[in-house]
């Protein structure tokens, strides 16, 4: 598994109206096999950071290294999962899951085998001939995961992958993500807007400042992944701690921020 180091990265978008400084001197290090959650105010540059880590966007200054090598473009074993899952509605479930291997021109027979294994792992083996349009939101998310698994990704980058799902499906998929991470040990980075999700799925939670995004704090969460973590006292404490940090960054509505401050004091 690779480690990822973001060194002093800044990103400026050249917008239609004006230039936008999205990231400012971001430094971040993900140890190999670590599970990181990234949380911060809307528009602070979380997606931008993820794109830079995927090699899809070159930082204006600074650099990103994965497994010791500087990123110059998309990397073979990095999988990126976006909020809308990045599925192609005109391809079947099977073709969508296999796409990464097809694009990387892997041998057909082995690709098919690995893809089927991945689809079975996420429980979609029965639906290989369906189109994504015929799947539920949760199933689409599973399909996006199957694509990453088929690639045997060692670095999984996810941008609010569960935010479009209803609460039950969401917990279900959080468990799947956790299980996959524990089984495979890949390096994982999850962008989320949900404090609970960040605490449930991040062994380190990175909090960002409002735009231009910088790293405001890194919260250690060593008990992440332990059985029944959602119901523990520690879980609630971590959530409260994060809520207070986010309130300090102005990421919460003033009322919610006041409540968080009160809760933190209690």
């Amino acid at each position, binding site marked *: 598994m690779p480690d990822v180091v973001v060194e002093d990265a800044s990103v400026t978008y050249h917008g239609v109206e004006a230039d936008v400084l999205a990231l400012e001197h971001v430094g971040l290090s993900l140890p190999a096999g670590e599970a990181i959650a990234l949380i911060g105010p809307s528009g602070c540059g979380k997606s931008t950071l993820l794109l830079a880590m995927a*090699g899809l966007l070159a930082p204006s200054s600074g650099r990103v290294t994965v497994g010791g090598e500087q990123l110059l473009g*998309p990397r073979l074993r*990095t999988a990126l999962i976006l909020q809308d899952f990045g599925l*192609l*509605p*005109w391809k079947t479930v099977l073709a969508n899951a296999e*796409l990464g291997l097809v*694009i990387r021109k892997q041998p057909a027979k082995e690709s098919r085998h690995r893809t089927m294994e991945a689809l079975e792992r996420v429980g979609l083996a029965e639906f290989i001939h369906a189109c994504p*349009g015929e799947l539920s939101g949760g199933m689409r998310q599973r399909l996006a995961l199957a694509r990453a698994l088929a*690639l045997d990704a060692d670095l999984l980058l996810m941008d609010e992958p569960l935010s479009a799902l209803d609460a039950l499906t969401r917990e279900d998929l959080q468990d799947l993500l956790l299980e996959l991470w524990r089984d495979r040990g890949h390096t994982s980075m999850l962008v989320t807007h949900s404090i609970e999700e960040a605490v449930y799925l991040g062994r380190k939670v990175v909090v960002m400042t409002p735009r231009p995004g910088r790293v405001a704090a890194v919260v250690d969460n060593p008990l992440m992944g332990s059985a029944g973590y959602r119901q523990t006292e520690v879980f609630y404490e971590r959530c409260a701690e994060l809520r207070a940090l986010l309130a300090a960054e102005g990421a919460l509505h003033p009322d919610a921020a006041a409540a968080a401050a009160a809760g933190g004091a209690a």
Partner: protein
Amino acid sequence: MRAAVRKVVGYLGAIAVMLVVWEVAALVLASPALPGPASGVGQLVAQASVIWPQFIVSAWRVVASIVVGLVVGGPIGLLLGRARRADALFGPLVFLNYPIPKVVFFPILLVLLGIGDVSIIALISLIVFFQILVTARDASKSIPSSSVLSVRSLGADSWQVFRHVVVPASMPEVFTALRISAGTAVAVLFFAESVAGSTGLGYYVFDAWGRIAYGEMFAGILAMAVLGVLLYEAIEFAERRVCRWAQAQR
């Protein structure tokens, strides 16, 4: 299967309505130029052996034109929609030429290419080309960047992005343009054949008109209508196969 039955029933119903309207119109107008449905269809059957070869000639011309227009206009349009620099260069050229009625160039084509298939096909292709080009360009321009990003994150080069995303994503719009083009193509075909040439349904209709042979003229008109419907249905059929996924979307 059920959809097919529904379609046939729909067509039969529409035909019945048209026959009634036709009958009434024929009675009201009482003109030899508009025979009633019975004699109109009778004429078509009676003239079948003469009309059939003309039908084939016309069908070949219009299909060839649509194929040429699509094969040239589609890829260029899709490329222009994705390549900002090329679009800045050629886009204005396209938009300057798009509104010009291409039929006015027919005399020039006749001089350059001679009277016959080539100039007729060139004219119709030109028109179809522009319609497809403009639609394909807009379609590929409006593809959500997330589709492109996710495929690029899998390591796709430009050609793979084009093949796996741009082409399929634009297909529904291209098919819509194709259907509209087919209607235009038949109309231009009629114009071109009646102006230049001695073959094809357009010529047949116009020739019959000149001879005041209204029965034959009418049979030709019906044959032209059939050609249009067949073309439309063929495109529908292809669209359903190619864009099956679009029906699964809400």
